[in-house]
């Protein structure tokens, strides 16, 4: 946002002028003048009037207009617009956090967060100028505006405040719509996709729902069922991805890899259970995983093509190689 359009800088200018006891109480023209000095841009009368309204509403600023004298004043001397005591390192941390969230988060979350933080930072803007605040330092490949991400805030609130949610779910595989009431427990991100883990009344068990398959979630009153049990967190600890493949449970998965892939598996373990059974001096290696097989794991293993060979279990070898050819 250009400095001239940043309302917070004007709010700060208005606040400073109202608290300046060395000068007479300001008229609206005095406040316009204060804003002009602060932003090097003259705001319109309407803009400053709206700013005062916003300060009253958003910052609970006790600004009173005295009709007889045509001046503005604070009715509460104890009020402080910059009432949050932040140290320089606090400001830096907040700026870094905003920047980090802008980089790794999605637009809706980071925008809201930034809006709230800008309020806090406003009072300190003079001491801590914006500088390269908007300069991008981190770039991720998280897609923006993918289907369903608009539900993030609603589910976040549902989990935080323990609120049941009515959803319409569309199953890509069955091509069927269902109406369900779920009790969200956890938001899960995997491979740039977001999921809500929830107790499903219809299934009478905990299920995972992709945001992209959910239509129009609605918060409803009702008793909340389900808690963030240890089973939920341990389930995701033991799986690569989201959706289990079959009912195999925890499996020992062994595969061989060619030398060219060795560095990759060393640098990027598939899962925390990954172990090297042996590494031959040629670079050929045998790798072991202990996890719950998932669709996402099978997709990953297939992506290596002939660079790996599944040794155990046999059903997985068949699934990764033979069934892939269908």
């Amino acid at each position: 946002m250009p400095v001239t359009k940043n309302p917070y800088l004007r709010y700060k200018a208005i606040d400073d002028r109202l608290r300046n006891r060395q000068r007479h109480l300001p008229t609206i023209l005095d406040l316009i003048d204060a804003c002009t000095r602060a932003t090097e841009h003259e705001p319109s009368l309407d803009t400053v009037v709206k700013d005062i309204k916003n300060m009253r509403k958003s910052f609970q600023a006790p600004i009173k207009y005295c009709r007889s004298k045509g001046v503005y004043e604070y009715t509460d001397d104890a009020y402080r617009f910059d009432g949050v005591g932040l140290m320089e390192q606090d400001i830096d941390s907040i700026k870094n956090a905003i920047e980090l969230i802008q980089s790794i988060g999605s637009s809706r979350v980071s925008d809201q967060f930034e809006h709230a933080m800008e309020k806090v930072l406003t009072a300190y803007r003079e001491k801590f100028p914006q500088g390269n605040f908007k300069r991008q330092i981190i770039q991720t490949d998280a897609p923006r505006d993918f289907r369903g991400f608009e539900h993030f805030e609603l589910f976040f609130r549902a989990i935080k405040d323990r609120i049941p949610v009515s959803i319409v779910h569309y199953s890509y595989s069955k091509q069927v719509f269902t109406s369900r009431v779920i009790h969200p427990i956890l938001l899960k991100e995997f491979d740039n996709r977001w999921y809500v883990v929830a107790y499903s009344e219809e299934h009478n068990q905990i299920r995972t729902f992709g945001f992209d398959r959910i239509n129009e979630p609605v918060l409803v009153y009702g008793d909340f069922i389900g808690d963030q049990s240890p089973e939920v967190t341990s389930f995701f600890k033991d799986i690569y991805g989201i959706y289990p493949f079959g009912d195999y449970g925890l499996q020992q998965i062994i595969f061989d890899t060619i030398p060219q892939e060795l560095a990759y598996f060393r640098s990027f373990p598939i899962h925390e259970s990954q172990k090297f059974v042996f590494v031959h001096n040629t670079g050929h290696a045998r790798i072991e995983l202990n996890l719950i097989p998932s669709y996402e794991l099978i997709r990953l293993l297939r992506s290596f093509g002939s660079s790996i060979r599944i040794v155990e279990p046999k059903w997985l070898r068949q699934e990764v190689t033979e069934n892939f050819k269908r």
Partner: protein
Amino acid sequence: MKKSPKSYLFSNVPNEGRSDNPKLLRITITPTHTKVDFGYSTFKSIYTNGGWIQISPETYILSLGNKQKFKLINTKGISLSPNKHYFESLRDWQYYSLYFEAIPFEDGQYNIIEPEFMGDKEELEAVNHVSGGNFDFYNIEIEVRKGMQIM
């Protein structure tokens, strides 16, 4: 007529639709309108590209108790006939909502009727014959105790 100042949502409302495609998913009763949510999947379509959907502006809710009609007042996600919402494949789907005048917040049975087909009657019958599709829904049962108050 009893009107609640609050809004209530009914999930998986019992009904006797002629098919499950489109599927009646939810009904929301508010003081100002009744919203009915549907889901349609193209997997049964006889068209290779999934065909199309539309809804007549004359569609209404009929109270089986006092025969009162509640007119369609808005739609979301579906075209009003003669316009059509076209699909691209047999793997497409559409979630859509019809907004009707507010029905009372009390136990009752209703039909949702699309009275006339604005396009080619023969084409509609041919499509319905193959896909089993028909829009009308009968004996939709609203039980107040099953409603969930919307937050």
